[in-house]
Structure formats: C-alpha cells, structure tokens
C-alpha cells in the first residue's frame, strides 16, 4: 500500500535532503580520521572528540549567540582533545588502542560536565544557505543546494582531502609517514610532528561533526547525543580502504539506508523493524566489502597503529 505521495517531487526532495544531512555528520568525522590514519595513527577517540565538539560548540553558541563562534570553538575543542591523545600515543608511544579508548571515555565525561548547565535549552538551527539558481531546481535543488553550511563544508573538505592526499607534496609526505615511518624519518621528515598534525586535523573534523549535530541537526545539547556515530565513522574509514571517495560513497549509503528504512516502516509493509534498523550496517558492510574485493592491494597504511620511536 504505497502512497502515491511517495512519488511527489517535493517529498522526494525532502527525503534526499534528510539523507544528505544524515551522511554529513559521518562524512565530516570520518574524513578527519582518514587523514590521521593515513599518517599512521589509529585514533579510537572519534566518539569522544565528536561529543566534546558538540558540547563546547553548543555551550559557546548558546552563550555568545553566534553559531560561527560555536562552530570554531567545537573545531578547536576537538583538536585540543586529540592533542591529549597525540601526546600519549605519538610522543609517549603508548598503546594507540588503549589511548584512543581513554580519549573517548574522557571526552564523554568531559562533554557531560561542560554541557550539564545547558540541558533543556535550545538554539536556532544553522540556517539553510540557498544558492541562487540551483536551490530552485526540482528535487535535487532542496536536497543538494538548500542545505546548511556544514553540508557544503563537508563537500569542500572532501575535495581538499582527496586532492591534498593525492596531488600535493604535503600529502605525499603524510602518506610516506603512514606507510613506512622509518624510511620517512631517514629522509629527514619529522614523523611525530606530522602525525600530531594529522591527528589534530582528525580531532578538528570530529569536533566539526559534533557541532553539526548540536547546532544544525538537532540544535540542543544532551549527554551522549552522538549515540555512537563516532564509531560508525571509524568503521567507515576501514571499510573504505582509506580512500576519501569511497568514504563519500559509504557515508551516503549509510545515510540513505538509515533514512529509507524509517520510510519503509512508515508505509507499514510489515517488515520487522529490528531487521530494518540493522540494514544501514549490513548494506554498508556489504557494499564496501564488494568494492574492496574488486580492487585489491589497497590495504591499511603499513605503519598504522605502530608507535614510532626514533633511534638516535
């Protein structure tokens, strides 16, 4: 009993817009983590950095009345928390998995503390920014060009990361550090400094993703509001075989299936809701496994997760 309304262009546009918004949080966070991992550091603190970004971003925006200031604070907060991780994992060469988990636990606690006096308040959502000419297009207009600044930022960031990693000297050095840190060190590259910067870029992106949640998607603060999205972002990086463009596909596929399953439920087709809820995960895993299988030889950066201690 599909409603004919489903075919309505404005509704289709609204559904697509929801998908784009859902995918944006994941894309922002996973792009940052991808850069950190390509430089050889596995940071499991994404969830923690994201929630701290959400809390600090909200607190700043609420107090100052400026969404821009809030967003900048979120980016800075994410980067600062990732610096704590970087000091532990890169400069003190501690176990990266343990340090990353500690970062997430710290972040969740810290965010709860920062946000506690803001529970039950709200801010106005980040406004949709129309692009003259394009926003009025049917269906894809509202979906792609009627979005808030976070969505446009995620696309610009994707282009920058893709191009930066593949086509710039800095990207080449970053990849070299991730593939073989001993060789990069021998060539005179400051391995630990580069890794620190990459991790901080990841933290900044996670903070931005958090701000997207607390300032645009659901503009309020509540503890644990990231609800595990940081972990999904981490998983997407692995499944995308550390490639930005596949990451885009993964994030949008995940977003699409998670929105569409809600619509399928609304139509009352009698498919168990529990199965539908697991579909985004299943679909993303299946799609990315297939892509990975088709194109071999693009595994993890060779030095990923290995602490670097320069021998003098």
């Amino acid at each position, binding site marked *: 009993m599909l409603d004919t309304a489903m075919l309505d262009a404005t509704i289709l546009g609204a559904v697509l817009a929801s998908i784009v918004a859902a995918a944006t949080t994941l894309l922002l966070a996973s792009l940052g983590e991808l850069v950190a991992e390509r430089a050889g550091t596995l940071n499991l603190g994404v969830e923690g950095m994201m929630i701290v970004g959400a809390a600090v971003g909200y607190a700043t925006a609420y107090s100052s009345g400026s969404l821009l200031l809030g967003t900048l604070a979120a980016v800075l907060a994410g980067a600062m928390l990732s610096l704590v991780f970087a000091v532990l994992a890169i400069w003190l060469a501690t176990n990266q998995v343990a340090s990353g988990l500690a970062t997430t636990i710290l972040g969740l606690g810290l965010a709860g503390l920062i946000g506690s006096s803001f529970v039950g308040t709200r801010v106005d959502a980040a406004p949709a920014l129309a692009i003259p000419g394009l926003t009025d297009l049917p269906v894809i207009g509202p979906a792609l060009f009627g979005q808030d600044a976070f969505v446009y930022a995620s696309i610009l960031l994707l282009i920058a990361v893709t191009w930066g990693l593949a086509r710039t000297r800095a990207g080449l050095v970053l990849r070299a550090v991730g593939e073989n840190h001993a060789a990069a060190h021998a060539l005179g590259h400051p391995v630990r400094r580069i890794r620190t910067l990459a991790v901080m870029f990841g933290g900044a992106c996670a903070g931005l993703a958090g701000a997207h949640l607390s300032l645009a998607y659901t503009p309020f603060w509540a503890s644990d509001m990231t609800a595990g999205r940081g972990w999904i972002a981490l998983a997407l990086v692995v499944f995308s075989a550390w490639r930005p463009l596949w990451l885009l596909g993964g994030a949008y596929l995940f977003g699409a299936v998670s929105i569409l399953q809600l619509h399928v439920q609304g139509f009352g087709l009698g498919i168990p809701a529990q199965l*539908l809820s697991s579909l985004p995960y299943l679909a993303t895993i299946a799609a990315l496994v297939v892509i990975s299988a088709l194109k071999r030889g693009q595994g993890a950066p060779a030095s990923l997760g290995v602490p670097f201690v320069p021998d003098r």
Partner: protein
Amino acid sequence: MRKILAMAVALASGAVLAGGSPIEARAAEKLKAAWVYIGPVGDFGWTYQHDQGRQAVEKELGDKVETTYVESVPEGPDAERVIEQLARAGNTLIFTTSFGYMEPTLKVAKRYPKVFFEHATGYKTAKNVSTYNAKFHEGRYVIGQIAAKTSKTGTIGYIASFPIPEVISGINALMLGAQSVNPDMKIKIVWVNSWFDPAKEADAAKALIDQGADVISQHTDSPAAMQAAEARGVKAFGQASDMIKFGPNAQLTSIVDNWAPYYIERTKAALDGTWTSTDTWGGMKDGEVVMAPYTNMPDDVKKMAEATQAAITAGTLHPFKGPIYDQAGKLVVKEGEVLPDKDILSMNWYVKGITDTVPGK
C-alpha cells in the same frame, strides 16, 4: 561504548564509596539512598526526570538523607555489580530505574536483606524489593483525543523505541483516545530501536511528516522530534519533560513523568521504619503523570482535553474501557468492563484501526 563508560564510572564510584566503612543504617542516622540510571542525567528525558525526583528528595528531607546516583548503567551484568557496590557502600534504599535492572536488583536484594530496593517498571517483587511505575497510558489517551481534533491529514506519526508492553500499550491508548473523537484516525509507527538517539529521532519525525503525519507523538527521550516538528510547522507532543522550549509553536502538551511524590514518600517510609514491599502503579490521580499546559490548540480542544484529564483523575474514565477490539476484530474487552492492569502490563497486541503489525509478531 556506554558499557565501557559505565564500567569506568562504576569503578570510580566503587573506589570512592569503598573509602567509607560499610555501615548498617540506624534510624537516628542519616539515610543513604542511591539511584541507578539507564541514561545520562543530562538526557532531558527519562533519566533527567528521575534525577529531578532524587533532587526533590534531597530538598524535602534535607539533612536526613544523603543521596547518590550512578548514570548510564547498561542493563545486565554491569547493573548487578553497580547495585551490589551501592549496597555494600552502606546505602539502605536503592532505586533502580529501568526495566532491565529487574533480575540484577532481585539478585542483589537476596544478598542484602536489610537494604530496601525499589525497581521501576518491573513486575517482580520480594520481601525487600518493591516495584513502581506510572500509568503513562492515561496521558496517551488524552493526547490521542487532542491529535484527532488537531490533525488535518487524519494521520498521527508515532516514534516508538522498543516493542515492549509499556510502549505498545501507549500506542493503543493513544489510538483509543483518537478513535473516541474520530473513528477513522490513522497512525504511522516508526521504531527507532533506541531510547535515546536524537539524530535518529529527528530523522524518524521527518520521515513521518514527509509521509503525511501532521501530529507527532514519541516514546523516545530526546526533544529532537519536537524540534523537527517545529521546523516543519506541524504539531507534536513532548515526552517525559515539558518540551515547550523546543517547540513553542508545535507542542500541544507533554506527558511529564513526576517521580518526586513517590520518591519522597518511600524515602520517608524508610526513615520511619515503615517501609514494606509494595507494588505501586500511580497515575494522574497520584500526581505521577502530569500534563504540561495545553498550548497551540483552540479553546474547545483544550476544554475537551481538560475534561478527559479530570475524568481520568477522578477514576470515571479508564483509557482501556470496553468495547475494545483487536486488529483481527475480536472483542477483547467487553462493553462496561476495563482491561485488568496485568493485561495492560503485558500487552503485545494492537487495537483495531492500527494497520501495522507489532514487530516480531
């Protein structure tokens, strides 16, 4: 993730609590009371309201009590350890506030016969374990009527968490209320399989609105759906807390959980030594189910809602009064009868008029 966090919290609180020597509370001494929460106190929903109740106890009884809480405790083995630690630390009254804490609470209660336990939303009691719950379906019946009066499309959107009896009976009560006004009301139900995931709740609200629902009701804990309704210009009902700030033009009312009267009464009983194991299911009459101000609706709808609320409070109207038919058209509750409490507490079927099926059935 929550698991890891809760473990850390549990370890930390254990370390702190272990510092004091475990003592049996005597009547003259300060009563130590503890709360175990499923979510963070900052969720602005279920856990937030329980914590408001805890704070009301502190305010009311002042120096006579000392309260603590542990938040984000996952249901299952972790809960047992947290509850045990609280008992060992000298708490003599422990409230466990989620359905899944039922077995852990009973287990720990057996080992600490002198500690009083209070388990929310469960159905098993023991000599030192009481259960308590609130009749939220009373509020759902009222909002069902409001929805039927307010909706132009004739479709209510319902964001549901998990297919457990409490949620199912809420959907049914809302539908019965709606049908009492307009027998042809339709409902679209979306399960998000979570109590608290703001972004997903917002997505669900948007999906329901896109499919033609113009009044949104939720049985999840965040104000995200209310905000989504406000942004899209449709109406919505808040959950657990008054969410008017999140939907100044959208909120019709909220079903507010008010645990304070119960918590104060039980803590006093523990202080006086009059505590006994009870099974309490309070509703509007007891002040546990409170309706937020009726807003954004015409006066006649408001009057109707107030009259219904008054009738339920007075006991003259029961949301599950007969005749009630199930989806197959079978008469479940006869005319002039009401569905017994135990059947409401174990409800796993939809009433006639809901075209969806109960997940997993």
